[in-house]
């Protein structure tokens, strides 16, 4: 199993979540976070924004579904401009459902 952490634009959150739902990934966790990338934030005239609001989506999927979930996220959050976000994938050794106490 793999954990996908996707940092996307807040305005794209609904698109991504809906598409993931449609693709069969209804279970996820989201958090509103602040971050910056290579460009160290955003300069608008005299104002510098160091940290920009983003949405962090966290989902755990089976190994064979990783590329599909990733393409759903990229297709729906891509604008082609700086600040589209990142997707991180990490290994999950074990996963348990608390309600039943059983491993997935």
């Amino acid at each position: 199993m793999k954990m996908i952490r996707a940092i996307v634009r807040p305005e794209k959150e609904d698109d991504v979540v809906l598409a993931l739902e449609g693709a069969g990934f209804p279970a996820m966790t989201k958090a509103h976070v602040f971050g910056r990338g290579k460009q160290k934030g955003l300069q608008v005239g005299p104002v510098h924004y160091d940290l920009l609001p983003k949405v962090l989506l966290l989902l755990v999927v089976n190994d064979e579904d990783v590329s599909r979930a990733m393409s759903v996220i990229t297709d729906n959050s891509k604008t082609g401009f700086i600040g589209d976000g990142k997707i991180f994938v990490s290994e999950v050794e074990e996963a348990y459902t608390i309600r039943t106490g059983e491993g997935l």
Partner: protein
Amino acid sequence: MKEVMAIIRQAKVKETLAALADIGVTSVTVHSLNGRGRQGGNIMESVDPEMKTDVECVSKIYKFPTPSSMAGDSKLTKPVLWVPKSLLNLVVSEVPVKKVLETLIAVNRTGRCGDGKVFILPLTDAVRIRTGETGDEAII
């Protein structure tokens, strides 16, 4: 060294932290966030008095449009809700992961939908910023 990520009910955080302290796990990071599971976040059908915290929050967020309710062409018949949850993030090396897992499940298990998940991830290194110690020393 393992990272344990537990997504649990917000109402159970205090109890869980106390139980973890009892087995010697005192360092925990708690995040407050929203989540949903296989049921698509719709917990209204499994509402009961013991889920008070969740239900109160849900009745608040229920008024706002959700992704599914906004999409007219969605195939989903019920609105999808985000349920407030807490994420406990802990790194363990000394206490066996199995013991932590059993504690988390024993405390948080109610048998109803929305109890949450526990994920165990491998971790390659840790650093204690104050002293610069790395590896297992950093988290003991």
